[in-house]
């Protein structure tokens, strides 16, 4: 028999999402809905968290296809041209014996985007269905997902460096491919999806339904 946990919500208060100041709803009613310390807009939970996260996840999943099908870069050297997709770039690195770099690129560009979309989908669905089990593990999953998301930009930066550096006309020239736009969009949209998901929703019903 555990009592319902004391949360900001149960105290009729809001924790500022930017600076963490604990502000009571009474203050908000009587004064303003801006944080008295940092002046950010106060909300108890991120606005429309579930709807926004769903929309961004669907967009990311759709863009994931062109991101992997279309080439991200083309190298023309001595009249020979090689075109790479995201996965093709990894295979080429393996082929040239750069295993460590190949693993880094594989994790950042192939594993992380899929993992992120899958993890956020699972989190959104688990909240939607009011799942009670494994709250702490799901909180950890969210924290991890938010942390790793940005690292997928490695490939975009790599391409930007190659196209700026390798432009020796007939000798060697690298150009970007349309897959790069879709890939960058997937990375940025999933970053937004992780930001709009509110991990507090994982915990919101703890202690309310459990004791009946």
């Amino acid at each position: 028999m555990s009592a319902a946990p004391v949360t900001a919500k149960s105290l009729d208060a809001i924790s500022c999402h930017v600076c963490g100041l604990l502000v009571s709803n009474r203050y908000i009613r009587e004064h303003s809905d801006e944080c008295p310390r940092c002046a950010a807009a106060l909300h108890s939970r991120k606005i429309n968290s579930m709807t926004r996260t769903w929309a961004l996840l669907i967009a990311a999943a759709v863009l994931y296809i062109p991101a992997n099908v279309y080439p991200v870069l083309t190298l023309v050297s001595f009249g020979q041209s090689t075109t790479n997709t995201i996965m093709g770039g990894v295979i080429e690195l393996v082929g040239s014996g750069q295993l460590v770099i190949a693993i880094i690129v594989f994790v950042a560009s192939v594993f992380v985007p899929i993992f992120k979309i899958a993890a956020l989908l699972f989190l959104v669905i688990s909240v939607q269905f009011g799942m009670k089990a494994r709250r702490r593990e799901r909180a950890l999953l969210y924290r991890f997902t938010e942390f790793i998301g940005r690292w997928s930009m490695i490939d975009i930066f790599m391409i930007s460096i190659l196209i700026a550096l390798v432009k020796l006309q007939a000798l060697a020239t690298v150009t970007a491919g349309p897959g790069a736009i879709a890939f960058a969009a997937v990375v940025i949209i999933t970053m937004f999806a992780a930001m709009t998901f509110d991990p507090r929703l994982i915990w919101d019903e703890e202690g309310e339904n459990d004791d009946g």
Partner: protein
Amino acid sequence: MAIDQDFTYTDAFLACPECDLVHAVPSIREGEQGRCTRCGALLYVRHKNSLDRALAFALTGLMFFILANMFPLLTFEMEGVSQSNRLIDGAIAFWKAGYWELGIVVFVSSVVAPLMVLLVLITLLLPMRLNRVPPSPQLQIRTLNHLRPWAMSEIFVLGIIVAFVKLQDFADVSVGLSLFAFVLMVAATVMAYLTLDEDALWSRLREIKA
């Protein structure tokens, strides 16, 4: 840990930013950190001379950022012809190739956001060091929080390494002076963020205003 039901706002208690559980803010020693008892999120850290150290790291970072923009990052050589690139050339190359969206993304995440982070930190912490109120502390601290995920210098460093390895296969690539400056800028920025204690920031601001 009882909380007065009639409070207006308080910094003696705080709610976990990830699960909303309320905790009393204890006085912890420098170098210690507090985590949420329910979900394990990091709640607070205390650092020795937090604000001074963050300012020193930010000033160091700015110096290296300027250096990183003055010299080539990499130089690529093939059949006697060579070509170098600077930090901003990646963004320009995307823009010129018609991929302007990517040009903007790369420009913001590798140049604008990292520079802004350093400038905001300096314009916030330097006046405070001199006992003055910064130009707009609330806006500056909020900007710092929102900029954080979009400043991707540390990821850019990995991008450079991957590009370097890929080029080595068919040409001579050499590392430019700016690369070292850039790596040091990243290290200084990471240290500035790690040592900056936001609670110390707010309480110091209150002292100065009083």
